[in-house]
């Protein structure tokens, strides 16, 4: 059976020279399959929305309907979770959502899934949490640190509460990253293994064909499930981003 982990191997497609990034040293900026997948996802987003919003018709066509549906979904999230101020953060949450969504979906069709790379998901997670910190400090100044000391608690509890709050805040980018990464990795590995069963059992005579048929139907069902997971994980990423942003936007009512 083919190695189910081989699909996650980074491989160079186009060699580019190393670039010195300040603070990080020499970074190899070659186009790898992961970078290509991200570029493709971002390009698909832009092309899709360029077409979807080209006419901006009052009676929308199919493409425009889908584009507005996704926009409405994220708009609903920022509106219902963050509230009236949510509109400001809509572009950020929306960019996260569509990028993760298109990267996930793209991975269902082509050979490489960018969101199954920890480097990618962790960067997205850190991006979210750094944005949250930036928004929190920008909006509340030093009062941002009230986030770790919720009001209305008897003071001896703070000894216990503050470290827990700090820890739970610091762990957010990691959980964001690992949730997306784990879902994508697990799904693609399981698909690969079941698909491998089809080939392996198919070569074992008549009895094997029954097993192969079973494995094949599992692959079909799992593929459907994975499409749902692809959407759901992007949605969860957007929801959590909104929740974390809401924490610092409405720090007073925290």
């Amino acid at each position, binding site marked *: 059976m083919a190695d189910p982990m081989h699909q996650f191997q*980074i491989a160079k497609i186009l060699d580019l020279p190393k670039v010195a990034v300040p603070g990080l040293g020499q970074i190899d900026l070659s186009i790898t399959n992961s970078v290509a997948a991200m570029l493709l996802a971002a390009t698909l987003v832009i092309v899709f929305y360029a077409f979807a919003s080209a006419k*901006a018709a009052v009676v929308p066509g199919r493409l425009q309907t889908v584009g507005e549906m996704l926009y409405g979904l994220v*708009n609903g999230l920022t509106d219902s979770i963050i509230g009236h101020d949510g509109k400001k953060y809509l572009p950020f949450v929306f960019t996260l959502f569509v990028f993760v969504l298109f990267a996930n979906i793209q991975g269902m069709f082509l050979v490489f899934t960018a969101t199954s790379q920890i480097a990618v998901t962790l960067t997205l997670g850190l991006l979210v949490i750094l944005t949250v910190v930036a928004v929190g400090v920008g909006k509340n100044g030093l009062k941002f640190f009230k986030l770790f000391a919720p009001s209305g608690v008897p003071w001896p509890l703070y000894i216990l509460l503050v470290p827990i709050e700090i820890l739970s805040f610091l762990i957010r980018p990691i959980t964001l990253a690992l949730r997306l990464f784990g879902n994508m990795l*697990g799904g693609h590995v399981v698909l690969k293994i079941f698909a491998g069963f089809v080939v392996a059992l198919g070569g074992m005579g008549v009895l094997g064909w029954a097993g192969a048929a079973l494995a094949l139907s599992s692959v079909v069902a799992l593929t459907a499930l994975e499409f749902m997971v692809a959407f759901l994980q992007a949605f969860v990423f957007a929801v959590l981003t909104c929740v974390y942003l809401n924490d610092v936007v409405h720090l007073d009512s925290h």
Partner: protein
Amino acid sequence: MATEHHGTVETTAAPEAHGGGGLPQLQFEHWGGQIVWLLLIFAVLYAVLAKGLLPRVSGAIETRGAKIADDIAGARRLKDEAEVQARAAAAEVAEARAKAQKTAVDAKAAASAEAATRQAKEEVVLAEKLAAAEARIQATRDEAMGHVRDVAKDTAAAIVQKLTGKAATAAELKSALA
């Protein structure tokens, strides 16, 4: 950090039987390029969406909302107008009906008044005729009664003549009849 991630991952990806040097995702020499590229791509995507495409999408949605609200307001205005017109028409109909009824009542009243005056006039004429007739009857009767006295006088004279053989005088007859 690597081992920590490794532990998390192995539970998710149990069938990693080959174990050929762990997860490809943990080959850190590939991280730098992915991170830098991701940040670049994300920044560009954010800029394009936030400045270019999303305003168009939200603009289309807002335009639609405004158009629908406009159309509904227009329809409501037309409905109100139609209602006002319907009310005016109903009022006109009621007015016309009232006028017609009034005309009918007036005509009836005029007709009955005319009838009454004509009847009164007729009655006056009839009463005059009746009075004249009664007067005539009275006169005729009086005259007849007058003749009765003459007849009685004549008859008495004749009777006296026959019985006595001599004619009674007019004074005797008059005193006998009184």
